[in-house]
């Protein structure tokens, strides 16, 4: 039982990352009708906003020692972070420690700007072009973005730890009446889940309860009519693109303490998030979120060794964890033609 609760928690956590990316993808697809293969790259750029801020905050003053040498023969460099020089040792160290949460503030304007520039500079010209062209151009963009990041940050993962207050884990076991230590869950993962829930809730509230959101929803349903009513739908869609980019970026920022970011993390997520979007049903925001959590939980359970062994022994399906997402996607698409909550006629031609 304790293991099952743990896997549900894991699934929710995994699912929230999928849901956040899929939500952005669906927003872009639903509003602009664009298949954005660069969405994974936006997630990655978000993560590197956190890396950049961490690097900026821990910029060091370098003094070259005249006498001492390093073990490899070059003059020893004595490094002191500027933050510590300026704000005192303790406060400076605290700022560096909190760089990931601080990066949220840094990432929002950056991602909105990137989203705006991308939409106005590139995507805008592809509204009327076939989906294949959209895929190719955004895929090209994704490669360019990730190669540039690789050039400047290297290919290795870069550690971006959570603030020390959030390291360690919480003991659910005692709370739920199990043995102490049997259900423990890292604080930061709980933060991530809560954060995703807030973001998802905010996006839905924004679309549901603001005039702006109402227009956008109307535009998603019938762009032409909304345009005929004299509403400048394009400008709103640009803002939606920026918003989707910011959602992906924030998902990336908050993900960095869970996995040290590297330049190809976006591509790792891209295929899975497309599967999530399609399983949820093209153009359906609740569908994307639902499918994200569903696949996250299924994946977690498939990774659980008693279940793995069960599939291997009784169903002759070894390594079910490697194929579960695809298997479920196939089954869902074959039984529900438009995914869980897809609308008729969207992306079916």
């Amino acid at each position: 039982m304790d293991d099952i609760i743990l896997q549900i928690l894991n699934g929710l956590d995994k699912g929230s990352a999928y849901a956040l990316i899929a939500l952005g993808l669906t927003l872009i697809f639903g509003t602009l009708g664009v298949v954005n293969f660069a969405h994974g790259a936006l997630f990655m750029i978000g993560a590197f906003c956190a890396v950049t801020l961490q690097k900026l905050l821990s910029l060091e003053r370098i003094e070259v020692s005249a006498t001492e040498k390093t073990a490899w023969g070059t003059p020893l460099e004595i490094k002191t972070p500027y933050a510590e020089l300026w704000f005192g040792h303790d406060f400076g160290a605290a700022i560096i420690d909190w760089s990931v949460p601080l990066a949220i503030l840094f990432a929002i304007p950056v991602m909105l700007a990137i989203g705006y520039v991308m939409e106005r500079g590139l995507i805008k010209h592809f509204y009327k072009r076939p989906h294949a062209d959209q895929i190719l151009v955004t895929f090209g963009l994704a490669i360019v973005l990730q190669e540039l990041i690789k050039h400047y940050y290297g290919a290795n993962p870069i550690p971006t730890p959570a603030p020390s207050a959030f390291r360690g884990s919480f003991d659910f076991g005692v709370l739920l009446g199990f043995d102490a230590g049997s259900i423990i869950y890292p604080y930061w993962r709980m933060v991530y889940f809560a954060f995703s829930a807030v973001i998802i809730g905010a996006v839905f509230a924004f679309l549901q309860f603001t005039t702006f959101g109402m227009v956008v929803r109307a535009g998603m349903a019938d762009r032409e009519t909304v345009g005929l009513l004299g509403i400048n739908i394009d400008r709103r869609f640009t803002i939606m693109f920026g918003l989707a980019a910011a959602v992906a970026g924030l998902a990336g920022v908050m993900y960095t303490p869970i996995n040290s970011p590297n330049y190809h993390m976006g591509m790792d997520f891209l295929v899975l998030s497309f599967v999530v979007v399609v399983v949820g049903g093209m153009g359906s925001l609740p569908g994307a979120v639902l499918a994200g959590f569903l696949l996250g939980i299924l994946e977690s359970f498939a990774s659980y060794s008693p279940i793995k062994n069960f599939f291997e022994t009784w169903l002759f399906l070894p390594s079910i964890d490697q194929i579960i997402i695809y298997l479920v996607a196939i089954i869902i698409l074959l039984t529900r033609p438009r995914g869980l909550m897809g609308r008729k006629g969207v992306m079916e031609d």
Partner: protein
Amino acid sequence: MLGLDKKDTTLLIVVAVLALFAPFLLNPFPTESALAQFNAGYPDLMQRFVIFGIFAIGFNILFGLTGYLSFGHAAFLGVGSYAAVWMFKLLGYNVVPGIILSVIVAGVFALLIGFISLRRSGIYFSILTLAFAQMSFAMAYSVLTPITNGETGLQVYSSDNPLFQTATDPNVPHLFGLVMRESYTMKVGAWSFSFNNGYYLCAILMLVAFYISIRIFRSPFGLMLRAVKSNQQRMNYTGLSARPYTLAAFVISGMYAGLAGGLLASMDPLAGAERMQWTASGEVVLMTILGGAGTLIGPVLGAGFIKYFENIFSKINESTLHGWFSWLPDPIEDPLVWLLEHFIGGGWALTLGTLFMLVVIFLPGGLVEGGQRIGRLISGKSRGTEDETGKPAATSHPAE
């Protein structure tokens, strides 16, 4: 000729001439010159050009004609390769059984996947094919290791004892004694050109594949496939079911992929699981769109373009650059090398990504459209759509 009209015959002849003289055309620079770095006329790359050409031609039969975008075609290529290597392991190094089996196995596999995937259309179809291919990749990499040799790739071991391998047979892939990687080198002045057995086998098969593809494009069957693309609903209303046609197209293009896979294994008897990864499937999509989907020659051009950058640009390194620009004064040389460094060696992917974007933005019809524009410039005709009729009919169908 061969049941083709005049334009198509010309196209086929042009492609044939290009393929036969590729060893000359791809080695335009003298061997010792600094520009020799850009020569692509060595056997391995020439083989890759035509093999991936076959792959893309096949993909185009499905995507270019019916508009069904498969994201899992690499699975058929991979299955073809495994089938061919298993033939080498079991029967011997003659490539004929391997190539035949690779086409058959890929066809059967495509029938299976196509039968299920084609129940859906649009992006739902794409994701279904992607899901099947990713599953195949994951299994080939790990669980199916006894069949695929996993990470290392399937290869022939000396302990395999093939059935028909005699002591006199070459111990490498061969066609009735003609060793695939044997080459003849011709030396003309400062140039040298290599003529590789394997390349010519691939080139001939590519021409056959290309010819069949022309025939399909021009046949009533091809017309049906186009009908599927332009309006499947209307087709249904006339009492025709689209699925047998799309399934046939899917299987044919799967067999092309299998042939490509079999040839890859015949040129180099090792089949790696990463041939089936989604990035490999994505690559053939890119090749086709980049060259010009729905056109006859486009996919081949796209395949050549991508393979060229992957193989040539990745091999340029910083010291090569310094070698080229050493005649420049340092203040110019260093920034120039710094700038170009982004695009070479490990940066080849950046070059490719940038070019994708440029081509898609400025040449919506792919490289074929670029060629048409240049052609128009040369012939001095005014811009207009009537030119399109001057080209094979297929080129007037833009990508989708």
